[in-house]
């Protein structure tokens, strides 16, 4: 094994590689060298994934510059985000209208993501979130004029959310001017304090916007549908997960003492979000929009673990976050490719399974996994989530969660049924062939979803280590 100082070296190396990626992205953007950016950037991201993964397996805790702390929880998420970043980078190369600009922004976006995961203070968290949100807005705008509307929506509503968050931070300042995440538990007021309760409300509202929880999520489908699909994949696979990481660090490190106060709220939000996402997904005709609602409902499931508010629940949430990350990126990769062929609505997908086996099989597997059909990874996550709720005695939450989980199969089934129906094909006909980037990204996602579905031991183990480290155990 590596000595402690070599752990430190690994952390430095990881951040150095990230910095290198940002630099290369900026350089490429200045010189408009798309291919170079991709050829340098992709290996860097892959290497960084491996580096963060080894930081995680090292298991030690390192503080960096006083604002970042790498401990198993943050290292695991850093690795996950890097992995999903690699995949998004891969699919964006071919389909982004301004790939060099995208590369430059993507670096900052990743910095923000890692910042949130490794945050030690509220300032880092909020800045990280803002960095992520702004980068995303510009990425959408860069894609072309037609993208202005979703970008503006995201920008304005995001600004409201951030201001709400900052307001909450300001309230916390009155209790602990250092704004450090740890240490507040000892100095904070007793549960029930009005100011603190208001702060909690504002935190929840602000994060709920980012994490797309009902009723703060009405923007989600519009933006998901309006944004370029590779960005949609990023929104669903990364941005939203970042918000969950922020919720976890904020509520279980900073506010862990008040779990009795916020847990019922999260329970309520989880139920509302699941139902909202699923019921809306029932009536969608557009595949991208359908996935938007489906990922809202997935956010509801993830919230179950947070509502349970113990290490088991967080462990379950982490598994589900990882699972959904790969499922949704994989699914949107296929959707992205099909969109470029002109296939958008469920009706367009009619007979798709015969036109492209690749699309038929991979989309089916992703959707089945999202619906929680065993033995795919989505099932493992949900099993853990519902188990954690039952273990905590939250039977209604578990029951409604399970009900929703199976309800969702209905609309996934509709898409799958359409793909394998023999009715007339409306948009074009003949075989469709995917390109290497899409195939590579989808293959990685499929491998994760299927292999870890069959053998989820390692992923659960990792989630458990991360969760325990979050609780300081």
């Amino acid at each position, binding site marked *: 094994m590596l000595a402690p100082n070599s752990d430190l070296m690994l952390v430095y190396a990881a951040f150095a590689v990230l910095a290198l990626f940002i630099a290369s992205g900026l350089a490429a953007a200045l010189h408009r060298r798309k291919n170079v950016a991709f050829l340098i950037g992709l290996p860097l991201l892959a290497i960084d994934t491996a580096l963060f993964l080894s930081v995680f397996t090292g298991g030690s805790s390192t503080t960096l510059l006083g604002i970042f702390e790498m401990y198993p929880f943050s290292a695991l998420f850093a690795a996950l985000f890097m992995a999903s970043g690699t995949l998004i980078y891969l699919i964006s190369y071919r389909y982004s209208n301004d790939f060099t600009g995208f590369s430059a922004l993507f670096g900052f976006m990743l910095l923000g993501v890692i910042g949130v995961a490794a945050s030690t203070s509220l300032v880092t968290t909020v800045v990280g979130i803002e960095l992520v949100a702004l980068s995303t807005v510009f990425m959408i705008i860069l894609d072309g004029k037609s993208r202005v509307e979703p970008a503006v929506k995201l920008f304005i509503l995001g600004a409201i959310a951030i201001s*709400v968050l900052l307001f909450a931070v300001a309230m916390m300042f009155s209790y602990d001017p250092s704004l450090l995440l740890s240490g507040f538990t000892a100095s904070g007021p007793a549960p029930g304090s009005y100011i603190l309760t208001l702060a909690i409300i504002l935190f929840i509202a602000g994060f709920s916007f980012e994490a797309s929880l009902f009723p703060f999520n009405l*923007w989600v489908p*519009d933006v998901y549908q309006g944004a370029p699909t590779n960005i949609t994949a990023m929104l669903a696979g990364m941005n939203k997960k970042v918000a969950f990481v922020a919720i976890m660090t904020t509520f279980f490190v900073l506010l862990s003492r008040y779990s009795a106060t916020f847990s019922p709220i999260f329970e309520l939000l989880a139920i509302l979000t699941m139902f909202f996402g699923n019921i809306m997904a029932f009536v969608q005709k557009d595949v991208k929009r359908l996935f938007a609602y489906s990922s809202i409902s997935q956010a509801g499931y993830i919230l179950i673990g947070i509502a349970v508010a113990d290490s088991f629940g967080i462990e379950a949430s982490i598994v589900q976050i990882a699972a959904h990350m790969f499922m949704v990126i994989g699914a949107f990769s296929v959707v992205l490719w099909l969109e470029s062929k002109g296939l958008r609505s469920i009706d367009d997908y009619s007979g798709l399974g015969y036109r492209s086996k690749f699309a038929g099989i991979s989309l089916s597997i992703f959707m089945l996994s999202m619906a929680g059909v065993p033995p795919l990874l989505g099932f493992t996550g949900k099993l853990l989530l519902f188990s954690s709720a039952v273990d905590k005695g939250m039977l209604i939450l578990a029951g409604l969660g399970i009900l929703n989980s199976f*309800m969702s199969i209905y609309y996934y089934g509709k898409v799958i049924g359409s793909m394998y129906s023999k009715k007339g094909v409306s948009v074009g006909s003949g075989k469709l062939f995917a390109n290497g980037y899409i195939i590579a990204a989808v293959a990685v996602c499929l491998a994760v979803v299927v292999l870890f579905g069959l053998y989820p031991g390692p992923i659960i183990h990792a989630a458990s280590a991360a969760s325990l480290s979050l609780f300081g155990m």
Partner: protein
Amino acid sequence: MLQALPLLSVAPLVAAALIILAIHRDRAAKYIAMAGSVLSLIIIAVVVLYYVGGTYRVSWFSLQGYSFNITTSVLPLNALLLALVGIVTPLIFLYSFGYMDTKSEQSRYYFEISLFAAAMMLFAISGNFVTMFIAWEMLGITSYLLIGFWYAKKVVPDAARKAISTIIIGDILFLAAIIVLWSAYHTLNISSLLSIAGSTVYLKVALAFILVAAFTKSAQFPFNEWLSDAMEGPTPVSAFLHSSTMVKAGVFLIAILLPLYVKAGMLMPILAIGLITAIIAVMNALSEHHIKKILAYSTMEDLALMFIALGFNAIFAAMLLFVVQTFYKALLFMSAGSIMKATGEENIYKTYNFGFKTNKLLYISTIIGVLSLAGIFPLGGFFGKLGIDTSASSMYVYIALVAIDFLSSVYIFRWLYLPSRKDSYLSSFGYRTVPRSMLAPIAILAVLVLASGLAYFMLPMYYAAMPKFSISIIDSLIETVLVLTGLGIAYILYSRGRAPHVDASSLEYKLLHNSFFINAFYVYLLKGIELLGEGFDALNDAINSVINGGAYSFILLGNALKRIENGSINTYAIAFAAGIVFLVIVFAMNLIK
């Protein structure tokens, strides 16, 4: 291993297997079947003569430590039935040689009838209810196949269906009885069950089930309707079905279980149903036109008479009729088949010229059969009917019985006289062409009928357990006078060319031929069930739509919710604000609590 010998008597089973393996050779089928039946007759002769009383069992499967066996036993009653089946089977097969000559599908016919014979033999030797139930079901199914043999004819499938629908009631009840008996006594061995002490509710229930099952097989009221329709089957099958097999199974079953019915005090229903059926049968026989159906109603009457005797606990009388009826009924059916074959006509009013001159052997044999059925001394029928009459321990029943005897004499002579009328315009050539293979069994049966009176003397020699009834002169005289009167009336009414014709629309026909409206009852019952089915189908659709509606409500809700998603940034911002207010309210409520 000699104990297993009775099992070998089901040799026709082997024949059936051989036939179905050689299914493409229609010609070989009849010889294989015949060989099987002769072999079984030999084995049966050995068994009946030397192995009476033996039992043999082999375990089939076991349950909870209790064994379900295949048991054979050759107690006197078993031997009696076995002998009858053994004798009649080759005769029927021989008759089939001639009767089924022009028909195709020989192998199917001989396969089915061999299986049927084997089933009856197995039934005869079964020593426990498991074995008996196997044979019972085989009988039902093979009889179904045989009745429906000419399925291409329009009415045949329905006739077969009617038979099986009735029989299946008995099958299910038999199964229920087996379940009750096994649960109550943990044995299904008939001899063990006969020796159980006391009568419990469960015993009574099981006996009731068995009784109804027997009534379905033996076509007793209210399960009598299938029997006349079953005449749609080939005539050898009818002859077989009505003489020694199938319908006799019910009587036989009650006969061997009679001690239990006595113990449980359940003789009354047997007697009552027997009487009702006998009356229905006679009335129908008097008004029927179909040459075979008259005989079918006569069988129903004979069976009813046997049940009446059983109802008086007069087993000897019942068994005597059981034996003699076998021969004369087989003989009469064969005669009927020959007449049908000769004239191509089934309606006795349209049948002419049957007489001594047209076919001596056939005519004499038929008269012997008719006289025996009517009950003329010294033929078997005389002893049989007399036994039934004398068994009646109630005066009213006795009167009813002699009245039935009288009426049966009328209808059977009607059956004889109508075809014997002369019509010089019609050719009588057909009677001479009846093949020898059909006449031979008729002749053999005629001899057996002549000799069957001896059964009255021989049965007690073999089976000491049966108390013989004594013949009183007065009873004999009453019977003989009544029968002769019946003969006279029938002669006056029916022997001339223009016999009184009972139209299906006439009042007499409606009065006589209604079976107490049991057929109409079934028609309405089936209508009712069909209506019920329609109702349930509608209910099913309703349940379906309720559940579909429940699922669909989610979609409606989704469509309603779609309105908030209007793309306007204002709405989203307001929702955001509303969310915060909502959270505040929830928290406030939590805090107040």
